[in-house]
């Protein structure tokens, strides 16, 4: 569907363009614009100079033109194309932003309103957040171009796992930042307590990824898991005379919880690898 230009540069004009290589004028820029669109004139230009150097020059010029359109945050120094592209996609950014919002704002608001409640909210939400982020990132509504990407050779496990890792990497500093902030406002939090949620969080995220290889929609499952976790925390709090940050931390840091979480995380990850060809997130099919 390319529209070919209706006019062409003469050999004299192309010669003048070549001679001014080190000092381009406005007129040369116009010639460049035309040459980018006109294969006929590029062919004539190639006869006036060494073909290889012309091709190289055009590649450099076209690269310069294209680079100007790229957003600066895409230019992550040294990052491989897949990582750069995965990081730049809106679904991932939305998921990471949602995770940051939940982890950052909710505990702070709760802390402002209910004092120690902020820490409690953070500890309850933290293990759920990786799962929520992964669930959000792979909803059809979140990734409208998902079906186009799904049939590419890089899609499937590699892309999904990479996105999950990126979300986790973005969520971690937010969690620690929130913990530090809530800790500064309220009571200090031991470092061991601050990482107790990591394995349960990884296990839930891995389960969500594994669900992405089935026909089961991860969203209702994620909601069910969240409700179960919240109910367990509240039940534990009641049995111990009231729910507080210490009881939730104790539940998360309990060796049984940690071993079960590790087993679930490894099992779900293995299931994802085995079922890697079934990775998908188009629940409307």
């Amino acid at each position, binding site marked *: 569907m390319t529209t070919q230009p209706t006019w062409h540069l003469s050999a004299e004009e192309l010669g003048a363009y070549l001679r001014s290589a080190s000092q381009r004028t406005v007129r040369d820029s116009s010639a460049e614009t035309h040459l980018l669109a006109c294969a006929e004139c590029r062919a004539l230009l190639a006869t006036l100079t060494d073909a290889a150097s012309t091709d190289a020059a055009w590649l450099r010029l*076209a690269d310069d033109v*294209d680079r100007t359109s790229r957003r600066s945050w895409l230019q992550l120094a040294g990052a491989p194309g897949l990582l750069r592209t995965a990081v730049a996609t809106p679904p991932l950014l939305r998921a990471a932003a949602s995770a940051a919002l939940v982890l950052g704002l909710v505990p702070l608001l709760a802390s402002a309103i209910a004092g120690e409640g902020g820490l409690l909210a953070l500890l309850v939400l933290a293990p759920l957040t990786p799962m929520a982020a992964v669930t959000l990132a792979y909803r059809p509504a979140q990734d409208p171009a998902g079906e*186009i990407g799904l049939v590419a050779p890089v899609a499937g496990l590699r892309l999904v796992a990479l996105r999950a890792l990126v979300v986790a990497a973005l969520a971690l500093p937010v969690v620690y930042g929130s913990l530090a902030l809530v800790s500064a406002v309220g009571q200090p939090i031991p470092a061991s307590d601050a990482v107790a949620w990591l394995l349960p969080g990884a296990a839930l995220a891995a389960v969500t990824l594994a669900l992405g290889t089935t026909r089961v929609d991860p969203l209702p499952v994620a909601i069910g898991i969240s409700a179960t976790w919240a109910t367990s925390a509240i039940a534990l709090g009641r049995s111990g005379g009231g729910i507080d940050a210490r009881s939730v931390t104790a539940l998360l840091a309990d060796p049984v919880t940690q071993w079960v979480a590790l087993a679930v995380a490894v099992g779900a990850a293995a299931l994802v690898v085995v079922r890697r060809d079934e990775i998908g997130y188009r629940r409307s*099919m």
Partner: protein
Amino acid sequence: MGLSLDHVTKRFGAHSAVDAVSLSAAGGIVGLLGPNGAGKSTLLRMAATVLAPDSGSLSILGRDPADHRQLVEIRRRLGYLPQNPGLYGGFTPFDFVDYVAVLKEHTDAARRRVEVRRVLEAVGLEDVMHRRIRRLSGGMRQRVALAAALVGRPELLVLDEPANGLDPDQRLRLRSLLADTPTVLLSTHNISEVSALCRQVAVMLEGRIVFTGTPAELADLAAGRVWEDERQDPQALRSWLTSAGSYRHLGEPPSGATVVEPTLDDGYLLLARREHG
């Protein structure tokens, strides 16, 4: 090699969206014609490796998509345009096609940019390749998705309603654009597109393929069964008012009726009527 489906079935719950379909597309442009809900998109999703069939066998470019290594090989040689291609509105066409090119393993940045430019120029978007997609018209967005499907010069193109949103001029140019691809399987409910684009046509109704052949053979199904009259004919299977003001009838013509040359629409409508009883 192309594409070969042998008794392929896909169910969603109790509903068979694709029911024991056998179809071969070994070269050229093959059109899949049928009304909305006939199962065309489900069939194309299986041909594009988005969905796996529940039963039957599927061979794509001579490979078995059920095998992981062969699936990746297929996806390296496949271009796919979904029915409603979602795009990232904040991206430019260049960025979006570049993103798809990365997913298609075009790792060399300089060569990738050349390829992205090539496909965007091929669909006539060179003037807007750096404008945000949300600012483009529906037809331009369709061409962005088409460009993404063309990245890497695929050996098989699976296109679901590719002419959606394209103006008549762009529809005409679509044919030459697809000519370089060895095998193209496209779906449409627009019969004129089939005659304009396709060498072979398959008609799909309620999950089943009920006809395969050339567009001329589809039209010939209605040979001797189309007539025109000034009045409606209650005996006809189908009757409709033409733009000339006369009625066109489909069925067994009464004696003395003015039988006319059948079109592709006539063949398709007769087939659909016959299948629905």
